[in-house]
């Protein structure tokens, strides 16, 4: 049946197109502004910039605090994404074929950090760490693992549930033990899910604010927190635009990797 092109239909379509243009502008422009500002040649941002310069990137890597924060963020994201994905994968393999109230509860527990207000988790962990005397880096790493684990868990769970159980049974009936079946049959089959989970956990850790806000210490600061404190105490200067662009650039590279390795479809379904 053909839709009648009444006035209300056209008005509705116009409204949707208009809202889409406005929304995309509001979402994308602040990010684009940051990237353009980072290439400013002057002390203050002019739009359009008279010419492009990389002086603020040079400045960014020249600041010891910024450079260290960037390196710490990368280390933290690499380590926490790896731990979170391994743990999330184990949990997903355990729960993939189980039903019942206890398993439903476990699944909610593993997904809970996605919706739990992370600011509360930050305060709670800080208090726990103060009580037991946790070292700063270890504490930060564990917090990032808690925040990242649901991403690994969710993507692997989807892959593992889509897996044909006959394949694992075939492996076992051919004499492979549980560990050999896991390594030689299950893992290769769910690998795209594991990889997507790792990349998500990395991205989340690399941008994490609400727990890191409380858990970073003197000399041990992540890039987002360093950007935040610089903005608060030194004010809005263009070196922040450069720092932000470095953050954005890394995300762009990772998204490209995800698209290459596992495809866009998996990203759009993963949230």
């Amino acid at each position, binding site marked *: *049946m053909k839709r009648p092109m009444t006035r209300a*239909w056209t008005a*509705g379509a116009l409204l*949707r197109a*208009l*809202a*889409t243009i406005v*929304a*995309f502008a*509001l*979402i994308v*422009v*602040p*990010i684009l*502004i*940051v990237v353009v*500002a980072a290439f400013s040649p002057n002390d*203050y*941002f*002019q739009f359009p910039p008279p010419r492009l310069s990389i002086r603020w990137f040079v400045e960014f890597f020249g600041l010891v605090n910024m450079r260290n924060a960037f390196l710490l963020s990368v280390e933290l994201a690499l380590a926490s994404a790896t731990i979170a994905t*391994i*743990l999330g994968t*184990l*949990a997903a393999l*355990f729960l993939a074929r189980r039903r019942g109230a206890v398993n439903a509860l476990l699944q909610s*527990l593993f997904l809970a950090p996605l*919706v739990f*207000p*992370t*600011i*509360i*988790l930050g*305060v*709670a*962990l800080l*208090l*726990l760490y103060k*009580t037991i005397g946790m070292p700063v880096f270890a504490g930060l790493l564990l917090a990032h*693992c*808690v925040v990242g684990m649901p991403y690994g*868990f969710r993507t692997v769970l989807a892959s593992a549930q889509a897996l044909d159980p006959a394949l694992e049974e075939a492996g076992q009936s051919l004499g492979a033990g*549980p560990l050999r079946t896991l390594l030689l049959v299950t893992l290769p089959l769910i690998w795209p899910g594991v990889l997507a989970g790792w990349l998500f956990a990395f991205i989340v850790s690399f*941008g*994490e*604010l*609400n727990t890191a806000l409380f858990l970073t210490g003197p000399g041990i600061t992540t890039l*987002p*927190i360093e*950007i*935040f404190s610089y*903005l608060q105490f030194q004010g*809005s200067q263009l070196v*922040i635009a450069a720092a*932000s662009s470095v*953050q954005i650039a890394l995300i762009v590279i*990772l*998204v490209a990797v995800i698209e290459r390795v596992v495809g*866009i479809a998996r*990203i*759009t379904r993963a949230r």
Partner: protein
Amino acid sequence: MKSTWAWFLLAPPLALALVFFVVPVVYLFWVSLHAASTSELYGAALTLRNYTDVLGDSFYLTIVRRTLGVAAVILGLCLVIGYPVAYFVALLPPRRRMLAILLLLFPLMVSNVVRAYGWVALLERRGVVNTALRDLHLTDAPLELLYTPSAVVVALMTILLPYMVISIANTLAALDRRYEEAAQALGAGPVRTFLHVTLPLSTPGVASGALLVFLLTLSAYVTITLLGGPRSKLLVSLIYDSVTAFQWPRAAALAFVLLALALGFTALILALLRPGRVQGSGR
């Protein structure tokens, strides 16, 4: 044999979730029930005073009301702008729809501090907006756009908008178009079809989008601080301030007030929109 193998899978992730998620939150609640102490993290005496102080103090209540007000405005704007955008995205052909959703997902991966800074660069005294207004001779002196509740609303709304759009678009894209065609065949106009068929069927997407936007608004300390400044504090700012002042029981109680708001809103959304009722009859 099989059960020990399964236990080996479950134990490590369960340990992390229990020791570094459940235990600290329970401990935080325990601390919120204690008096303050100058020498220890918290005093020995059990008390409800941290809660009664917060709920009986007009300063705290003003901040709670402001928090709910700001969250409501952000949520309303996200719905009004997000729904038509989601509709537009859902009607795109699959390949383009994927691209649109990727374009919406990408900003969510960029750290919120970077996105908040983008708004600072736009709104500050020598920012893009003020410079443009001056160059167009619309203003003589720069407008004070930053450090206002409106700045917080605009920035947070745009930061969280993709969650709302993606949630609703995914539901709308999965919706069986024959329901709408049936309504039209039975004589309903486009407005009636939308109000009585499309909108009710999209409530699961609206509910999950609304929950995400509301819960993330409550926690958005960095955005609120950078754009609101010291005069537009919200509940989350008070938690941070209590922590930096080493008032642990007070910080803990405020954290649980925030959690209560989050849970209350979740219950409200589930009761009002009843997203569960659609799934059974959906496809």
